[in-house]
């Protein structure tokens, strides 16, 4: 359904003239004597609703269903017509609810049977309805503002549902003419106004209602085009429940609704609390909910609902849900519903069951800008080692108090104190020579010595803290404390004794740390570190990733292996499977997205000189070391 179809604006025009005070002549027993009461009491006489009461409660039921299923963007304007038009609400979303309408109707009260019939007419209401259809709704306004120069694309269509007691077919004809004439006039006015919109399409639904037992003076007439702008249909309906049924059918037609009956819902019996019986509950909802059903050909259509009125309903058997709500199910659609019989016991049992989520609910909504979440993710991921063996500090309980607060936008004095405490604690650990959880996976031998372990740990902690020093002055203080306390980097002499590779690695990451302020080169440093480490750790590390139980296959491994099995296209002209044709194509496409290997970029005649850095005096430019050594 388009947003601005006829269903965007519905105007109810209900006749409030003296004859509407007449009885519908359908009696309601309301004094239902409960059993085992004193004998001999005569029940109070049944009462009957007026044509007005029938019209109002049927219209309210129409609105109830509409608001349940379309709480937004489907609007109602309610007009009551007697010696003038009384517009009970506006198009604004705040005015769109049953309570507002009920209060306004109570203020109007029932029609006065002693008023002068000559002064009263439904025409006042119909004119006001056309006028109100020209008024722009907030949704139309919003759409027009958004579209700017294309504002004319926003449609203005609407529907007038008029409930009246007409005198004859020619009386009906006169009402239609009046609406048509009024639209014509108001469209002229609207053309010269910024606040009004011309009516492009108006659907007039005239409902003639009359007391049960009387003959109708008006005949039914299906929808007919009276002009390019106006269509009209006439329904002649007896008052009482017949009128309610008619409006129920109309709301389904107007809003593309369909019916589903949930069957076999077990409920405790009212009288005997320990027994349970099965009930059915009929629900209305948008008919899209049935699309897949109908397509599958397996339509559980059952002829008619209990009322035997109009509808076809699809029956679904109730299935008590398991209380497991941690599973995601594939869901192609969710639709708002409205119970046909809202306050019947089975309906309210069902809706109460569904509304009472076992979890405790809080009132009031959270309104925190989503942008804040992006900021937070940015901060939290400034330093985030991807695999456990790449980190020391995140394997240490002792670091948690610092790591958990340093990512914050601002720190309290207490936070700073806690960070400092954490650092002192680490110094203490180092003094006592406590072991550190340095990963030895894939390393040969026992792994680094204790003092070196601490150096790695301090370096990593520094990386983390440095990533956040620009957050606030307090973050800066944490770094100052860290720099003052951490074990100093070893002397140059000592360093030279160590293996060259390890030195490269360490220096690289230290250098990267210093670069952070200009660029987020920590990321590159992490990758670099990863590559360098892989040089030594070989396959063992791959095992770690692969073995973590939840990991998908390593990227692209499978398709590539399968490519291996089939001869490459160019080599043999034999048959190629569709799969290999496909995977070759995809892989070629993917490879185009790769950043070219720097060695190849710098190569001469496809040959790149290796170990260039060794020629350089300081031997520091080792960016491609990891890769180069493998070739």
């Amino acid at each position, binding site marked *: 359904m388009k947003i601005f179809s006829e269903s965007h604006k519905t105007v109810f025009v209900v006749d409030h003239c003296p004859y509407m005070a007449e009885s519908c002549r359908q009696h309601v027993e*309301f004094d239902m004597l409960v059993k085992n009461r004193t004998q001999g009491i005569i029940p109070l006489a049944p009462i009957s609703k007026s044509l007005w009461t029938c019209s109002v409660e049927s219209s309210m039921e129409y609105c109830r269903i509409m608001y349940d299923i379309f709480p937004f963007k489907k609007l109602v304007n309610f007009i009551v017509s007697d010696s003038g038009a009384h517009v009970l609400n506006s198009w604004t979303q705040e005015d769109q609810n049953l309570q507002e309408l009920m209060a306004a109707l109570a203020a109007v009260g029932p029609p006065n049977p002693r008023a002068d019939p000559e002064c009263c007419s439904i025409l006042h209401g119909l004119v006001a309805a056309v006028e109100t259809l020209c008024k722009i709704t907030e949704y139309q306004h919003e759409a027009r503002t958004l579209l700017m120069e294309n504002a004319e694309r926003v449609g203005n269509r609407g529907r007038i549902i008029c409930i009246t007691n007409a005198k004859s077919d020619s009386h009906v004809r006169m009402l239609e003419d009046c609406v048509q004439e009024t639209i014509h006039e108001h469209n002229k006015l609207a053309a010269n106004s910024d606040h009004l919109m011309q009516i492009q399409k108006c659907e007039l639904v005239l409902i003639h209602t009359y007391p049960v037992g009387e003959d109708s003076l008006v005949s039914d007439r299906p929808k007919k085009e009276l002009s390019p702008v106006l269509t009209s249909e006439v329904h002649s309906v007896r008052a009482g429940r017949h009128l309610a049924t008619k409006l129920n059918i109309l709301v389904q037609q107007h809003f593309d609704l369909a019916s589903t009956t949930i069957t076999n819902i077990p409920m405790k019996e009212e009288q005997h609390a320990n027994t349970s019986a099965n009930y059915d509950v009929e629900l209305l909802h948008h008919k899209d909910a049935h699309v897949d059903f109908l397509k599958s050909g397996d339509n559980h259509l059952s002829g008619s609902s209990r009322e035997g009125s109009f509808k076809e309903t699809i029956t679904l058997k109730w299935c008590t849900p398991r209380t497991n709500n941690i599973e995601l199910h594939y869901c192609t659609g969710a639709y708002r519903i409205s119970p046909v019989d*809202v306050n019947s016991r089975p309906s309210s049992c069902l809706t109460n069951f569904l509304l009472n989520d076992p979890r405790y609910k809080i009132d009031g909504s959270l309104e925190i800008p989503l942008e804040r979440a992006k900021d937070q993710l940015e901060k939290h991921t400034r330093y985030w080692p991807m695999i456990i063996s790449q980190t020391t500090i995140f394997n240490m309980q002792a670091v948690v108090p610092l790591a958990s607060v340093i990512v914050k936008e601002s720190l309290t004095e207490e936070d700073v104190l806690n960070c400092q405490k954490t650092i002192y604690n680490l110094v203490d650990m180092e003094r006592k020579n406590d072991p550190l959880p340095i990963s030895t996976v894939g390393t040969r031998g026992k792994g680094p010595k204790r003092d070196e372990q601490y150096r790695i740990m301090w370096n990593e902690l520094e990386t983390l803290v440095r990533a956040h020093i620009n957050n606030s002055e307090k973050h800066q203080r944490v770094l100052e404390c860290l720099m003052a306390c951490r074990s100093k980097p070893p002397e140059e002499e000592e360093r030279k004794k160590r293996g060259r590779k390890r030195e490269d690695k360490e220096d690289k990451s230290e250098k990267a740390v210093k670069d952070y302020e200009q660029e987020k080169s920590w990321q590159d440093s992490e990758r670099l570190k990863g590559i360098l480490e892989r040089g030594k750790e070989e396959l063992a590390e791959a095992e770690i990733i692969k073995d973590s139980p939840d990991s998908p296959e390593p990227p692209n491994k499978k398709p590539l292996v399968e490519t291996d099995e089939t001869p490459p296209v160019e080599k043999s002209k034999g048959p190629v499977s569709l799969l290999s044709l496909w995977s070759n194509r995809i892989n070629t496409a993917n490879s185009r997205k790769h*950043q070219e290997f720097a060695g190849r970029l710098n190569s001469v005649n496809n040959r790149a000189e290796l170990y260039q850095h060794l020629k350089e005096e300081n031997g520091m430019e080792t960016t491609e070391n990891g890769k180069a050594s493998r070739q």
Partner: protein
Amino acid sequence: MDDYDKTCLESALVGVCNIVQQEWGGAIPCQVVLVTDGCLGIGRGSLRHSLATHSQRSESNRFPLPFPFPSKLYIMCMANLEELQSTDSLDCLERLIDLNNGEGQIFTIDGPLCLKNVQSMFGKLIDLAYTPFHAVLKCGHLTADVQVFPRPEPFVVDEEIDPIPKVINTDLEIVGFIDIADISSPPVLSRHLVLPIALNKEGDEVGTGITDDNEDENSANQIAGKIPNFCVLLHGSLKVEGMVAIVQLGPEWHGMLYSQADSKKKSNLMMSLFEPGPEPLPWLGKMAQLGPISDAKENPYGEDDNKSPFPLQPKNKRSYAQNVTVWIKPSGLQTDVQKILRNARKLPEKTQTFYKELNRLRKAALAFGFLDLLKGVADMLERECTLLPDTAHPDAAFQLTHAAQQLKLASTGTSEYAGYDHNITPLQTDFSGSSAERM
């Protein structure tokens, strides 16, 4: 499916139709590739015959198109365009696409029929229908190059106002995480497998596909498996935490990333697309306002994680949640009157409930202009008063008389007593103190 030695495209399509429905039902999009030499068969069962009788079908021998599931029909003709155009074959095949609501396309061979040209035709099909969507998945500073299968389809929001199809961003930015219980199986437009593309920017060429040197490729594969990938981290974390990641697909368009098990041992990172708009899932409220909980004054999940801000309560409750009054069926009215009567007989214990029900009926009767009902119920309460047993609490009679009198005043319809927002309150009596009741 059985195969036969006669060209009978309709039976083939019926077979496809049945298999797809048995296997996946009617909601999963499917691409159907029909490979044909462009000959339509002869006599009964030929495509010409099928199309000629198309308008005379009953429900039992419905033509299989349009397919009863979201579909694309690709017809691969092992013939070139000129050959097909020399007969009416192409027209008939085009009819098939039309019958599938225009969903699909016909491919023909360019140039003479040879292996190379056939491969080139299938290459075109692959490019059109089987090319993954390339994107960069981002979460703060963490990123991964990913391919998304199948390609997300463009989506038209409202054909009247905004007819331009929306396509998803190539930068997929994660904007937060939420419990599965809170997002609770939301409706989605489509779902897609998210696979990392094996490459890293230092220049390791991984997954380049066609190389002549298999040894080199093997080592490349091993390396690919060793590179820590954000997808792996994300997938594992979502699975362990029982959460989904909310991902921004475009302006006012979101989706979710989650772990989906396809067997006991294996699960995959998947992405589902929500309907575009500011509030695709009403129970979460506006997407733009789903900020981090650390920004909330009070943790909405509670200190012990025993509560949740979701589902959000709507501003205006739906009719089934607000105890509306509907008297269209006599039983609705009778139930409401009986509720009053039952409480009237338990006065003064049920004073509060009695007045609550009385005021509910009063409000509805005033709105519906049903003043006779107010008079009727007033009469009924007066009669109840006369029927009170001797043992009844004296307050009962006072309250019944008071209530009846108030209803009668309201039934006059004069504004003084018939105000909609006015409530009848219990009569303050000397006994009122003892009528305290727990609601």
